[in-house]
């Protein structure tokens, strides 16, 4: 070694008495460039806590953390990104990828603190001096790492559609499905919004991977109606989709349909789990709608002997008798039902509990009973003249169409109501050559029907008359009937409540129609449940626990009969939940 190698370390002592460069530098006023990538800012109200920033960060500098006062809700995980500046490399990929566009960066880069923990913080939640800074890095206008545009679903044009009962939506091709699946960032915010809590990111990944059988297996974990739900689900998941915060939400429903369409029924058994060994327990399900059959599927899978009692000639409930086949073709529904029956579930078609057999007899011959009878009773218009022979019940019209009966609606048809039954009845009438007016008491934005159903009904030629209060039905002296209605204005009578339609004095109309289809709402038929059955009721609904169990112990209930959403996916979720509850009861493993 050279002598200099021994002396050189001591040369550093000459620096010991100088003012340190690194301390002096930050206190000089030296602002970052206008577009500099400084400390992060987050609009916590715009952010949905999807965690896409966390996923893309190559340094693991971002964690999604719970924050006080911000609870999870539909479309928002309630979590917010926390930055760790010990790891951040200021690349701004998190800003570029952020679906909602809530993340940005200030141009501030000076932050002195003796506590190293301070450099992990949650922007937008913990106040910082640079919050609200106009300067700093922003994603350029129109620039997105994510594709905000959904792959368009091929559909019949409306002019063609209304002349037939052909399925309106044609379905994605492989390329289209892969491209659409690629838009999903697997954030999972959608899962909580799905009543059945389907593992949406996992089945979309299966589409990306081309693993259809794996995808089908994931679907059936929570939903044995993928063909039906892939077509007519109310897709609450899409309203929650984080990609939808800055573009079109991922077409989750269509991707579900894509998976189910790709696997032949004969291959289902290969992909799906086998039944457990027989338990020797017998369960009766009343109602072969989506809720009843969902319960039946999961009970059968658990090894129970299940018989479903259905009053109608075919299984499917409102999916068959309430939804026209241009939206849900019967072969697709039959495929879902076929697999459930193939698993050993017996469906006794044309057997009405109450008329053909009693609830008491079912309870005595089975270890548990699940009530899933839905809402089969159409409520009346409840105006003078509503028993006129040309006033028809919307559910009955749809059921008659399903059975292939001649509807004889005539040329001019009024549909009263703004729900999905009203829209389906209107679209069915259009396909039978009628001119259709839809009269609704409130405004279009208040209509409970799916927005796309309303849009399509209008596109197919239905005329929507908003703010029309039914007053009376009168005989027209001919074949039809006169519908008397009053124009309304919407009045906000109480803060925090929705406006109320109020009749405008003198603005009364009288229109002649060949048929007036009433679709204002449906109720349950619980005439088969007597007091001696010991099932507590409240407001015409069985009172149930979280797992669907009633106080009667061996009787469970769910679906439209008890839940508030009154859609197929909620009924399916109820059926699954009740199946697990029944299984716990039968196996003595109650919580």
């Amino acid at each position, binding site marked *: 070694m050279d002598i200099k190698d021994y002396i050189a370390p001591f040369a550093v002592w000459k620096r010991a008495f100088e003012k340190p460069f690194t301390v002096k530098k930050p206190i000089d006023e030296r602002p970052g460039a206008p577009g500099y990538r400084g400390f992060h800012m987050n609009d916590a109200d715009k952010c949905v806590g999807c965690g896409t920033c966390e996923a893309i960060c190559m340094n693991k500098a971002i964690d999604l953390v719970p924050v006080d006062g911000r609870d999870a809700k539909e479309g928002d995980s309630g979590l917010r990104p926390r930055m760790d500046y010990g790891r951040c490399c200021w690349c701004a990929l998190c800003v570029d990828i952020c679906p909602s566009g809530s993340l940005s960066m200030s141009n501030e880069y000076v932050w002195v603190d003796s506590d190293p923990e301070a450099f992990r913080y949650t922007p937008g939640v913990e106040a910082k001096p640079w919050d609200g800074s106009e300067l700093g890095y922003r994603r350029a206008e129109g620039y997105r790492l994510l594709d905000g545009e959904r792959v368009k679903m091929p559909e019949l044009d409306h002019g063609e559609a209304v002349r037939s009962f052909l399925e309106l939506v044609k379905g994605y091709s492989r390329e289209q499905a892969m491209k659409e699946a690629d838009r999903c960032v697997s954030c999972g915010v959608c899962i909580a919004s799905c009543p059945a809590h389907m593992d949406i990111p996992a089945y979309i990944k299966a589409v990306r991977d081309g693993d259809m059988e794996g995808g089908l297996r994931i679907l059936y974990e929570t939903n044995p109606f993928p063909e039906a739900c892939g077509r007519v689900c109310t897709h609450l998941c899409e309203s929650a989709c984080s990609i939808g915060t800055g573009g079109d939400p991922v077409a989750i429903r269509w991707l579900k349909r894509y998976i189910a369409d790709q696997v032949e029924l004969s291959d289902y058994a290969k992909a799906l789990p086998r039944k457990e060994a027989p338990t020797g327990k017998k369960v009766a399900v009343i109602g072969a709608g989506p809720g009843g059959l969902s319960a039946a599927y999961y009970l059968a899978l658990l090894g129970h002997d299940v018989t479903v009692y259905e009053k109608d000639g075919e299984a499917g409930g409102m999916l068959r008798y309430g939804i026209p086949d241009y939206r849900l073709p019967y072969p697709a529904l039959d495929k879902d039902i076929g697999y459930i029956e193939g698993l050993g579930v017996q469906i006794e078609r044309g057997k009405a509990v109450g008329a053909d057999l009693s609830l008491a007899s079912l309870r005595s011959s089975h270890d548990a009973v699940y009530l899933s009878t839905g809402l089969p*009773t159409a*409520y*009346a218009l*409840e*105006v*003078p003249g*509503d028993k006129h022979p040309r006033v028809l019940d919307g559910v009955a019209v749809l059921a008659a169409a399903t059975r292939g009966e001649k509807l004889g609606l005539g040329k001019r048809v009024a549909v*009263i*109501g*703004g*729900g*999905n*039954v*009203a829209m389906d009845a209107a679209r069915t009438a259009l396909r039978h050559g009628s001119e259709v007016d839809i009269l*609704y*008491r409130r405004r279009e934005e208040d209509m*409970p*029907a799916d927005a796309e159903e309303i849009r399509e009904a209008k596109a197919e030629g239905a005329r929507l008359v908003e703010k029309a*209060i*039914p*007053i009376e039905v009168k005989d027209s002296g001919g074949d039809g009937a006169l519908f008397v209605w009053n124009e309304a204005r919407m009045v906000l*009578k*109480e803060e925090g409540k929705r406006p*109320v*339609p*109020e*009749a405008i004095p003198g603005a009364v109309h009288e229109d002649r129609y060949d048929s007036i289809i009433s*679709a*204002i*709402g449906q*109720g*349950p038929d*619980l*005439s*088969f*449940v*007597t*007091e001696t*059955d010991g*099932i*507590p*009721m*409240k*407001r*015409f*609904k069985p009172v149930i626990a979280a797992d669907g169990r009633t106080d009667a112990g061996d009787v469970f209930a769910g679906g439209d009969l008890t839940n508030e959403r*009154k859609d197929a996916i909620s009924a399916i979720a109820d059926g699954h939940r009740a199946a697990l509850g029944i299984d716990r009861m039968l196996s003595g493993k109650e919580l």
Partner: protein
Amino acid sequence: MEMTRFEEILDFAIGRELAAVDFYTELLAIASFAAQKSVLTDFRAMEEGHATMLTNMKSRHTVFLSDTPAVDLGLARRLAAEEKPAAGMDFQDILVAAIGKEDRAGSLYAELASSSSDAEIKSAFGSLAAEETRHKRYFEELYETEVARDN
């Protein structure tokens, strides 16, 4: 207000509530299934509660009711007025009957209030009329949320 007159008013109102209790009791007698019986029992209990409330007011010699009427959703005016109790009545039939009942009671009190020249009597009937609007509003809301969901 003279005590005898005050008691007469309260007795009249209590009588109407008890008549409503009888109405639901009659319906209960023809009800054929559990869901009907449950709703009718609930509604009857509400009317019994109203009768008890008025009885308490009578014993305290004061009407402590708000005279602010509830918002009128306007259903009573347009629902078919006839009440047709039948063994097969559904939730809609029962609610329509309940709305009609409350509406008629409210109208009667309002008429009595307007035809009275005694300020205190007018006020007592006015408060009873307002109370009936709150009862009616309860049933109207149930009708809107449970029956006419799609209208």
